[in-house]
């Protein structure tokens, strides 16, 4: 099967890109790993519930309307479908319902969104220690909230957003334990003026803090040295604050230190990436239309750098117009004309983003675990001490660290340990993080069984895909 445009991800960027392409008569397939549309931000449940949607707020309602338009757009939407290889000829190898199949596309837009930055503190692998984003997904998709008073810990707007949503839904919050460094306020201050261009964002932030105060939510500000404590389960969160240690009992501790682009696919296809020294993450190198350095592949939304859901929708439109022009369905003047408003909206959001980036820059101590016993690679259970030792004896990048310690070799393929391993190597070897080469992910991007591979109907499946695929499956089966 062949389409003009394949979009990977059905979040705000992917849905907006699909809508634009359909409007201009381009054939579109939208691949999404989740069973339902919306991405993480607008995750829609199987059955909607008024009370939950009210607690989630007006932005979520906007997302639901976007989903309705997307579903009616005529795009070939394929939920529950995992991309496990994207070839240089833009052949997408997919997995759905336990069987593999392929589609070909003239243009590809990766709208793979963001993932939460790892929070490698002691005990973060205990059952009951989860991310703030995970808990929000449970609220959106299952209408589920903590059964006992919960502790939210870390830094970033999502911490306050979930806390407010919990307050609105009647969930008891034991405390917010905030690790945002105080110095961030002075670093962010010079950007306040530019942020005022998009007042709604700041108003929203202030309103969240006000609602938390009115609800009497306890906030510990300036906390450090977080530890999730417990034997087989999460039992408490302890932390240092004002020269003393506090311990809050909780069977559920939600961690968050902001989000980073999900670059697994863009890295795997060999696209150029740059280190973002403000957002402290890698992001694909993109031109003014979101095109990556790999022919025919573009990136839209948070996968190209964190700018938030509102910007992601604009970027979806913009990047789609670029792809549609490359397909020849519209000419460049029309592309430029139709993107003018979108570009203006994006530039208004830019100032607020710079302000937020600096205000919630994670504390160095939250990214680089001080305690050598802290697990860094959750899959292979490699500790910070082991990574430090590997760095001392010559690991100058993630590939070496992987060879020395097995970090990044488990089923998550380094998605979760990569940022921490890089930060540890940089700290130990006194290098800039920009100079620490990241993991090079390879196909299959997610585990595929031999049975699923065998179901590929095409007899001429490329030897390269088949061989690299089976090798990977074989190694996964051994873990």
């Amino acid at each position, binding site marked *: 099967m062949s389409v003009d445009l394949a979009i990977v991800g059905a979040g705000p960027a992917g849905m907006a890109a699909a809508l634009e392409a359909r409007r201009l008569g381009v054939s579109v397939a939208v691949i999404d*790993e989740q069973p339902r549309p919306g991405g993480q931000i607008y995750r829609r449940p199987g*059955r909607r519930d008024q009370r939950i949607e009210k607690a989630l707020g007006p932005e979520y309602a906007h997302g639901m309307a976007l989903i309705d338009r997307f579903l009616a757009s005529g795009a070939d939407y394929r939920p529950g479908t995992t991309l496990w290889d994207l070839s240089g000829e833009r052949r997408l190898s997919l997995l759905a319902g336990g069987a593999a199949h392929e589609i070909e596309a003239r243009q590809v837009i990766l709208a793979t969104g963001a993932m939460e930055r790892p929070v490698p503190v002691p005990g973060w*692998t205990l059952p009951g220690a*989860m*991310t703030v984003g995970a808990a929000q997904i449970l609220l959106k998709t299952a209408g*589920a909230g903590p059964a006992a008073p919960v502790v939210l810990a870390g830094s970033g707007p999502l911490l306050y957003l979930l806390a407010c949503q919990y307050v609105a*839904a*009647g969930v008891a919050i034991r405390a917010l334990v905030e690790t945002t460094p105080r110095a961030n306020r002075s670093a962010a201050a010079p950007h306040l003026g530019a942020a005022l261009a998009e007042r709604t964002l700041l108003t929203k932030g202030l309103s969240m803090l006000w609602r938390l105060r009115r609800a009497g939510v306890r906030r510990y500000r300036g906390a450090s040295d977080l530890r999730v404590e417990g034997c087989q389960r999460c039992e408490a969160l302890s932390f240092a604050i004002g020269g003393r240690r506090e311990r809050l009992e909780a069977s559920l501790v939600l961690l968050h230190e902001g989000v980073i682009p999900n670059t697994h696919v863009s890295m795997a296809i060999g696209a150029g990436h740059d280190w973002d020294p403000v957002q402290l993450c890698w992001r694909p190198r993109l031109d003014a239309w979101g095109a990556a350095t790999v022919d025919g592949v573009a990136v839209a939304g948070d996968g190209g750098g964190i700018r938030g859901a509102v910007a992601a929708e604009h970027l979806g439109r913009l990047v789609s117009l670029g792809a549609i022009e490359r397909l020849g369905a519209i000419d460049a003047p029309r592309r430029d004309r139709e993107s003018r408003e979108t570009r203006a909206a994006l530039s208004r959001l830019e100032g607020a983003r710079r302000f937020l980036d600096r205000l919630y820059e994670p504390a160095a101590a939250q990214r680089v675990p001080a305690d050598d016993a802290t697990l860094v690679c959750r*899959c292979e259970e490699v500790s910070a001490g082991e990574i430090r030792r590997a760095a001392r004896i010559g690991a100058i990048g993630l590939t070496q660290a992987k060879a020395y310690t097995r970090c990044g070799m488990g089923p998550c393929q380094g998605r979760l340990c990569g940022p921490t391993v890089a930060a540890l190597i940089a700290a130990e070897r006194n290098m800039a993080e920009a100079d620490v080469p990241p993991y090079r992910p390879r196909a299959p991007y997610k585990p595929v069984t031999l049975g699923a591979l065998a179901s590929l109907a095409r007899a001429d499946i490329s030897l390269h895909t088949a061989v690299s695929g089976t090798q990977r499956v074989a190694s996964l089966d051994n873990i």
Partner: protein
Amino acid sequence: MFRRLLTEAAATVTISVDGAPVAVRRGDSVAAALLLAGRAVGRTTPVTGAARGPYCMMGVCFDCLVEIDGVGNRQACMIEVEQGMQVLSQRGARRIDPLS
């Protein structure tokens, strides 16, 4: 760990978790269903046998791996429950039946 906050009733399906029947809400992911059934632990790790449960709920961390309908290493957060689904917690590496 989690409880339902919903006001509206929804259809339920019955799945089997480690051999015991559990009524769950249609549309829930397997991971959500397990957490709401009070099961925080879904697997033990292949390296040290440590207990693990869902962490990211969005398909990144692979800590929610369970065996579903005889296939191991399934991401419980990415799969919706279905009537009659057989879910087994996973101990260590996935089990593979030898070819006969």
